């Protein structure tokens, strides 16, 4: 009887979870499906997931004066080549990579020593500093976006990589997460390292950091996902120079001319943009979950 009841509640749990995941997955399904289909199939909502893949005429190609027979392409090929042709998507991806990697690298460089000091060193005002860190967690980015924009503009840093990176280099979330993790590292380990002859910086990078890899990885995913997908901030500080666009800004290339023919390439671009993140998450999944559990964020 008890076993039966348990399995029933297990079923219910799974039904709820499956339902929830369907809701989450559906937009992704539509995105991938549209990126494979022809404009006609998208407009009429036909063709199933991948469409019929009937060769279609590339009208832009015809406009350039080529005979229609030479401009026949499968929708899949058309959408993805358009994604890379219409906008320099590769360039955007490289920009995204440079920006997110730099942001995370500098964030770690700053957050790890800060967290170590807040967790393990005794100094006057430590608790106050930590409460300030907690306070900063409460400030929404959008409220300080304008002052930061003005500051960057005053030093003429808008439309540079620096504008995309500098405002994010000090992550209070990172400091907080790492500090919570470092609190769990026994003091004896640090004392042992001191007795072995390490100075405080060696302790941070050679003892604390290696033990904190799962926590750092969790933070890495939070940080990279946030900045890879960020549309707001690049939109604010990159006003002219298209060569500095990050992938989400790249999607803007398709705005306006929503005559239907553009949906395929647009969704192809979106698919290309999210793929690296999904791949990275799948690779690091196990350690990510470990890290989240360890920092008590669950």
């Amino acid at each position: 009887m008890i076993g039966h009841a348990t399995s029933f509640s297990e079923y219910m749990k799974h039904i709820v979870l499956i339902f929830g995941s369907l809701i989450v997955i559906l937009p992704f399904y539509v995105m991938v499906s549209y990126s494979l289909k022809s404009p006609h199939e998208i407009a009429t909502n036909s063709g199933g997931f991948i469409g019929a893949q009937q060769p279609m005429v590339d009208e832009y190609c015809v406009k350039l004066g080529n005979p229609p027979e030479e401009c026949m392409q499968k929708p899949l090929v058309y959408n993805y080549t358009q994604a890379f042709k219409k906008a320099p998507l590769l360039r955007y991806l490289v920009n995204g990579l440079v920006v997110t990697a730099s942001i995370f690298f500098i964030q770690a460089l700053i957050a790890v020593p800060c967290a170590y000091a807040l967790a393990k060193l005794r100094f006057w005002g430590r608790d106050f500093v930590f409460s300030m860190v907690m306070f900063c967690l409460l400030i929404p980015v959008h409220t300080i976006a304008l002052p930061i924009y003005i500051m960057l503009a005053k030093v003429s840093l808008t439309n540079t990589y620096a504008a995309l990176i500098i405002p994010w280099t000090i992550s209070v979330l990172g400091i907080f997460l790492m500090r919570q993790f470092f609190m769990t590292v026994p003091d004896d380990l640090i004392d042992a390292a001191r007795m072995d002859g390490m100075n405080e910086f060696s302790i941070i990078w050679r003892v604390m950091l290696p033990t904190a890899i799962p926590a750092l990885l969790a933070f890495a995913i939070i940080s990279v996902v946030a900045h890879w997908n960020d549309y707001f901030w690049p939109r604010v500080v990159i006003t002219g120079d298209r060569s500095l666009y990050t992938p989400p800004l790249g999607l803007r290339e398709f705005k306006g001319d929503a005559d239907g023919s553009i949906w395929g390439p647009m969704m192809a671009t979106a698919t290309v943009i999210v793929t690296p993140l999904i791949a990275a998450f799948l690779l690091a999944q196990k350690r990510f979950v470990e890290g989240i559990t360890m920092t008590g964020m669950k």
Partner: protein
Amino acid sequence: MADIRLRSIEKMYGETAALCGIDLDIRDGEFLTLVGPSGCGKSTLLRIIAGLEEQTRGEVEIDGKSVNKIRASKRDLAMVFQSYALYPHLTVWQNMITPLRLRDLSSLERMPFIGRFVPGQRDKVKSLHTLAGETAHTLKLEQLLHRKPGQLSGGQRQRVALGRAMVRKPRAFLMDEPLSNLDAALRVHMRAELAELHRNLKTTFIYVTHDQAEALTMSDRIAIMIDGEIIQLGTPDEIYKNPRDRRVAEFVGSPKINILSGDVDESGNVSIMGNHTGIRIRKRIKKVHLGIRPEHFRLVNGNGATDSWPFHVTYKENLGSDFYLHGHLNGSKNRIITRAAPDEVGRITIGETVKVRARQGKPMVFCDNDCRIDVMQEAGYGSA
């Protein structure tokens, strides 16, 4: 190799004093144990010697030089922690070689890849490997070198922690309850190993423990610490046989020493519950406390003896080689424990009242303020 000298060390935490004026000379090559109940300041003292904590006042000297201003890493001392504190991300071998690399290689030489091209680095590394290899051999760690601490048992981790301390051949070893996390059998075994290690290394050992058995078995000298003070310093034998303070007598010895309150008459004769003990003291006080260790009681046959006390047995503890009888002397509430041989005990049942007396010359007399009172004479009492 070092002698370590502590000069009136004081440590305050806010308003509370953790250590109040510790003076201690630790001789070169000595095995000195700091022992005391938890919270007595022994670990704090060790950490001050190590340089991990700063004293509020006083001086730490190593080989005649003050090290007050010298960082822990530069004092050339090694420490073994209760939790072992091994680097969890490094293998046993890397754990052992890390202190050597930090001491002998410059930061440039330690760099990955680049370090290899520094002239002379290769020979240095080779000699480090020889040193670590020797230590691994001494401690029989060869089979474990490629494992991570997480894959080791408690005893093995303990050994690695010792190894990491030993490789550097430090001037002195500081040990903070290194055996507390081991199971009882392994602890007894490691006691012997540590004592042997000390004999072979001939280095100064400062050992902190709350376990008086560890202190008695291993040390050359013991410092008993209570409430931030060293109450008595001496060889294990002195400490056990001749404690100068009631707290020392109570702390050392297992089971605990029995304390009975006694009365003193005008001529200095001590009696307990009306029974003469045959002990005379010179000091003119009314009340004393008599300390008698469990093994210093004797069971007496018959009921007539005037120098013996009736002892009501409430519990018999069988340790195989010995029996401990728990109970109380008639008329007193103090629970006391006496030791007896198995063949004496066989006929005694719980609830029975037997007669016991103290062996001559063994009881110790303490005043109300825990001080020891010297016994003037003992006559016409007992014959054990």
